């Protein structure tokens, strides 16, 4: 019986190997199954999903206005201190002193993309940007100031 087992073992082995060969052989003769993308060339077609978390950005409208009131909730909610807010006081139109942001500093190199700042922002001043090519030669370039120079608070946002 050992002899029968020996011979059937050989044939079973060969058949199992042949099955594997058929799988790889199928893909070899079907170039249509290739899934890789040619990255720098396909930049134009490459579109990220709407929800994609690229980086934290602060949208400005055409009058260079943003919605950030400088309340500091995002700074408080950030688990690893990626956000720093430097505030200043400005005199509003009706003559009152008000707190406003001078610089909204965002350390992209420390960000873990946990979304807590965006979720907790009461005035929805922060949104996700779609940019994903963050590679730079110098780490200091990853520290970004989100509000544009000379920008002011949007009207009607408290």
């Amino acid at each position, binding site marked *: 019986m050992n002899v029968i087992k020996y011979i059937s073992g050989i044939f*079973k*082995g060969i058949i*199992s*190997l042949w*099955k*594997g060969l*058929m*799988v*790889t052989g199928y893909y070899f003769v079907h170039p249509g199954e290739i*899934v890789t993308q040619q990255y720098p060339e396909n930049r134009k077609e490459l579109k*990220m*999903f*709407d*929800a*994609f*978390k690229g980086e934290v950005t602060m949208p400005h409208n055409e009058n260079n206005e943003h919605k950030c009131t400088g309340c500091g909730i995002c700074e408080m*909610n950030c*688990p690893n201190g990626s956000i720093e807010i430097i505030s200043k006081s400005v005199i509003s139109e009706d003559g009152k002193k008000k707190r406003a942001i001078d610089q909204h500093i965002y350390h992209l190199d420390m960000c*873990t*993309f*946990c*979304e*807590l700042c965006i*979720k907790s922002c009461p005035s929805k001043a922060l949104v*996700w940007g779609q940019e994903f090519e963050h590679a730079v030669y110098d780490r200091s370039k990853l520290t970004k100031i989100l509000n544009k120079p000379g920008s002011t608070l949007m009207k009607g946002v408290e």
Partner: protein
Amino acid sequence: MTEEILTTPLEQQEYTINMGPQHPSTHGVLRYVVSLKGEIVHKVEPHLGYIHRGIEKMCEKLTYPQIIHLTDRLDYLTAHINNHAVCLAVEGALQVEVPERVVYIRTIMDELNRIASHQLWWCAYGMDLGGLTCFFYGLRDREKILDIFEESCGSRLLHSYYTPGGLMKDINPNFQKRTKEFIKYFRKKLPEYDQLLTGNVIFQERTKGVGPLTKEEAISYGVTGPNGRASGFSCDVRKHHPYAAYDKVDFKEAFYTEGDTFHRYKARIDEMWESMKIIEQLVDNIPEGDYSAKMKAVIKLPEGEYFQRVEAAKGDFGIFIISDGNKTPYRVKFRSPNFCNLSCIDLLSKNFKIADLVAISGSLDLVIPDIDR
């Protein structure tokens, strides 16, 4: 130098090899110190801590929603499931009822994550055994799941998608369609895995009977997940302590009694089928509603000890929170499945060859950041 070799008696010449931290088969910065007799493994001693980050200590300084993003980085392949444990612990402590929609979405996401994790394990395991082509097929199929995640959660690996009380944001409208497409696609591709690797005579010879673990040993060593179930240790948290929507679905626990490398492999393949079954049962029935329960702005857990178990892809993932009533926990401990699974490596690989050590440690599906924490 020659004299030194000749004067040392043969018995004392222990051949010690470092496998890792920079080694292709340890999948990360794990280091085995392997003592060899010829090619036979005499003793394996894992050295840990190369990426110990002190996450448990860090958690003591963070609020509960902030802990979530750290649990992503434990077992990075099953970020959703780790998040789930924290969320369930906090919700359980606060007695918050989460909307039904959230429960369903979380369950589907968990199962997708489990499939993705097993796919990555499958391809890495094929690579460990020298079949490099497996790696690309596995990753190719995993991309489809990651696309689903990216569309809804915004990221592919470290999602931070769950939050105490619900989800960060609602799922994408395409989610159900894409998930169903994926299931349809993967039901065709999974048999290909079997043809390429499972049925292969070389693979079977390499894995059958290698590194056996009995049920008693599995329980004693705390080996859970597919590794434990391959040994006959019924340890599926989804069955025994149901959470989320697992009591509403019908699925089998992948179960074997042999406990060798091949059956650990089979248990995972079966789990992928079961996960697909679970998803199919749920994906069409996601109820409408809110994606998050109303939570206070500052979450404070009442004083006490809370333990939450979930079934991660690698095994029984637990989070142990001791709260003193503040907004930050007093102590957090993660019961990471990989840490316990690793502990039996010496037992498993003793008296097997060095090539078997690779097969065994691959079949345990170790993720090093989860071990080191």
